C-alpha cells in the first residue's frame, strides 16, 4: 500500500474508534437521562416507576395549592380530569404557575404515591399548554374532539 494512503487509513481508523467510543458513552448517558412522560391516570394505575425520575403533566387543580408558612414547601394536585396526583415541591414555583393552568413536573414518586418534584415548568406564554399535556387530555377523550369533524354523538356519559 502507498505509504500516504496507509497513513490516511490509520487516521480514519483512529477517528472512527474515537467517534464510536464517544457515541457509546453518549448512548449510556442518553439511557440514564431519558425521562418518560406519564399522565396522572397512568401514575394512579401504577404504570410509573418508583425511585426513578420521570415527568408528570396535567392541570393544577383549583384550590389545591397549599403553601407552608414555616418553610418554602408547597403542595398541589394535578389532574387529567380523570385521576389526580399530589405533588410536593420544596423550591420556589415559577412565576407563571397558577391554579387551573397546565404544568409539567419532574421528579420521583415516593412510596405513598406522592410525587416529589425537583422541577416544575410552566410557560412564558399565557396561552400555552405543554404539548404532552394537551395530547394526554386528547387521549382521555377518545370519541371527542377532532379538528374538522365535530363529535358525531356524545360519549357514553350520564344523560342529564
Amino acid at each position, binding site marked *: 500500500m502507498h505509504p500516504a494512503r496507509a497513513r490516511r487509513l490509520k487516521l480514519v481508523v483512529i477517528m472512527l474508534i474515537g467517534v464510536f467510543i464517544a457515541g457509546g458513552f453518549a448512548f449510556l448517558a442518553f439511557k440514564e437521562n431519558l*425521562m418518560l412522560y406519564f399522565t396522572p391516570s397512568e401514575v394512579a394505575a401504577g404504570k410509573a416507576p418508583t425511585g426513578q425520575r420521570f415527568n408528570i403533566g396535567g392541570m393544577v387543580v383549583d384550590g389545591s395549592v397549599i403553601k407552608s408558612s414555616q418553610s418554602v414547601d408547597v403542595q398541589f394536585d394535578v389532574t387529567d380530569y380523570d385521576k389526580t396526583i399530589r405533588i410536593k415541591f420544596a423550591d*420556589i414555583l415559577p412565576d407563571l404557575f397558577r391554579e387551573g393552568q397546565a404544568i409539567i413536573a419532574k421528579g420521583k414518586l415516593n412510596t405513598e404515591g406522592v410525587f416529589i418534584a425537583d422541577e416544575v415548568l410552566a410557560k412564558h406564554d*399565557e396561552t400555552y399548554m405543554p404539548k404532552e399535556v394537551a395530547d394526554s387530555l386528547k387521549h382521555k377523550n377518545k370519541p371527542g374532539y377532532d379538528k374538522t369533524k365535530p363529535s358525531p354523538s356524545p360519549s357514553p356519559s350520564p344523560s342529564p
Partner: protein
Amino acid sequence: MIVEFGQFALILALILALIQAVLPLIGTLINLPNLILVARPAAQAQFLALVISFACLVYAFVIHDFSVAYVANNSNTNLPLLYRVSAVWGAHEGSLLLWALVLSLWTFAVTIFSRQVPPLMLARVVSIMGWISIGFLLFLIITSNPFARLFPVPAQGHDLNPLLQDFGLAIHPPMLYMGYVGLSVAFAFAIAAMWANRLDSAWARWSRPWTNIAWIFLTLGIALGSWWAYYELGWGGWWFWDPVENASFMPWLVATALIHSLAVTDKRSSFKAWTALLAIFAFSLSLLGTFLVRSGVLTSVHAFASDPERGVFILLFLLLVVGGSLTLFAMRAPLIKSHSQFSLLSRETALLLNNIFLVVLAIGILAGTLFPIFTVALNLGKYSVGFPFFNFIFVLLGTPLALLLGFGQLLRWKKDRARQHITKLIPLAISILLAVASVLMMSYFSFYALLGMSLAWWMLIMTITSFMQRFKNQPFSFSSLRKIPPSYYGTHIAHIGVVVFCVGITLTSNYSSKKDVLLKPGESYQMDGYRYKFNGAKQITGPNYRGYEGDVVITKNNTVIANMKPQKRIYFSQQNPMTEAAIDAGFTRDLFVALGEERGQAGAWTLRLYYKPFIRWIWLGAIIMSLGGLVASFDKRYRQKNKRTQTAAEKDRPDGELA
C-alpha cells in the same frame, strides 16, 4: 396610510428579490453580462425597500397604531419608547421581518465589500441570497403578515410580554439574527463555488471574513441570550439546554468548525468538499432552528406562539434549500481532487479532529433535542432528554477539543515530527499542578473542577507558547509585534477567550450554591460566608406595573457587601407576576437574590439565594472570542485580489482546481 406603504414596500421587496434571484441566474446560464450586472443594484434596492417596510412597522409601534393587529398584540400605550421599538421583533411576524431585513443587509454588504470577487461569481452569490430572500418574503406575506389590519380597533393594546421588556432582550434577537443569517453568506459562496465548479482556495478566502463576522454576531447573540436568561428569567441559570437555546448553539458549533476548516482550505487547498458541506450544515442548522422555534413541534420554555401551518411552510422551504444544496453537493463533490497531502501528525490532522469533535457535539445535541420527536413519531412513548445528557456530551467532547486546541496550535502544516513534541508533556504536567493549586484554593475538591482547570491552564500556556513562537528568530519588540498579521492575533485572542470561558463554566458549575429559604423580616441566612438579612418587602408602583420590592442586606464578616432590592412585578396588562432578581455582580463572584412570594401573615417571603463564582467569565470569554474574530477579519489577505495570494500548494497550477 403609512402601514399600507409598509405593506407595499414589502411586496416591492419580494419583486426585487425575484429580479435579484432570476435575472443573474439567467445571465450566468446564457452568458449575458447585462443580466449579471443586475444583481448588485437589485440587491441594493431590495435592501432599501425592506428598510422602508421595517421603518413603517416601527412607526406604527411608536404612534400606537392599534389598527394593526400585530401592534395591538404586542404593544400598549404604557410601554416605554425603547420597548415599543424592540417590540417590533418581540413576536413572530415582526421578528420574521427583521430576519428578512437582516438577510438583505448582508446581501447589501456583500455587494459593497466584495469588490475583489469577480462579477460573475458575485452575481451567483447574490442570486442565491435572492432565492433565500424570496422564500422568507413569501413566508412573511402569505402566512405572517405583520401589517394585517384589525377591526374594530382596540383602544388599548395587549402589551409586550413583560419578559421581553428588557434591554438585553431588546438587542439579543437582532444580534442572533445577524449571526444566523450571516451564515447564509458562507452558504451562498459555497453553493456559488459548487455551481461554478470552482471549489478552490480563492472561494475559501472570500468566505472567511464573512464567516468570521457572522460567527462574531452569533457568539455575542448567544452570550446575550444566556446573560438575559440569567438575570431576567429570574432563576439564576445561565444555560438550560432548552430546544431554543440548542437551536442557536448547534449552528455556532458548526460555524466554529467552518472557520477552522476554511483556514485549511484557504492556506492548504485541502478539505474542500468538507468545508463546503460545513457551510451548508451551518446555514441549514440556522433554518432548522427557525423551524423548531416557530412550528411548535417541540415543547420549549420560550418558543414563539406556534402555528403548524407556518411549520409546513418552513419545512418545505428547508427541504428545498437544504435538499437542493445537498443534491448539488453530491453531484459536485466527487469531482473535487485534493492535491495536498498531509501526514498523521500535522496541523491539518489537528484541525480535522477539531472539526470532527465540534460536528459530533452538534450532532449529539441535535439528537438530544429531536429525540422526543423521534420517539413520538415511532410510537415509542413520550420522552424528554434531561440536561445531564447534554452536560455529559459537552464535557466528553469538550475535553479532547481543549487538549487539541492547546497542542494543535504548535503543529506545523503538512508534516511534523513527533519527537519534537514529547517536550509538550512538561507544560501538560505544569498545567495539572497549577490546576491542583487552583482547586485547593476553592472550598472543596471536585474532580470536574480539576479537569476543567487543567484544561484551562493547558490552553493558556500553549496559546502563549504558540504566540511567542513568532519571536524565535526575531527580538520581542514593538516593531516586530506590528509586523504580525491580524489573523495571527485574532486566533490567539479567540483562544484566550476559550480559556476564560472554560474557567467560567468550570468554577460556576462546580462551586455555585443555591438555597430557597423562607425568611421573616429581620431574619437572616448564612451561605458560603455571606449573611443575607431580610428586612421585609414593601409595595412599589412602576410605569406599567405594580409590585413588591424586598430589602436584603448582605454582609461578610460584619462588613456590608451589598444592599439588594429584588422585585416582584405584576404588569397591568398581564395576569402573571414577574421576578426581577437583584444581582451584586463581581469579577470573581455574583450574589443573586430573587423574591418568591409572601407566606402567612407575618410579612415572611420566600427568597432564592445564589452564590455564583466566576459566572461573569462565561460571558467575558464569549466577548474575548468575538474580539478575536473581529481582529482576524481585518487581515489584509482577505481584501487582496486573488491572483497574488495563491497558496503554495496551488502555485504550479494556473487555475488551481479540478484536474
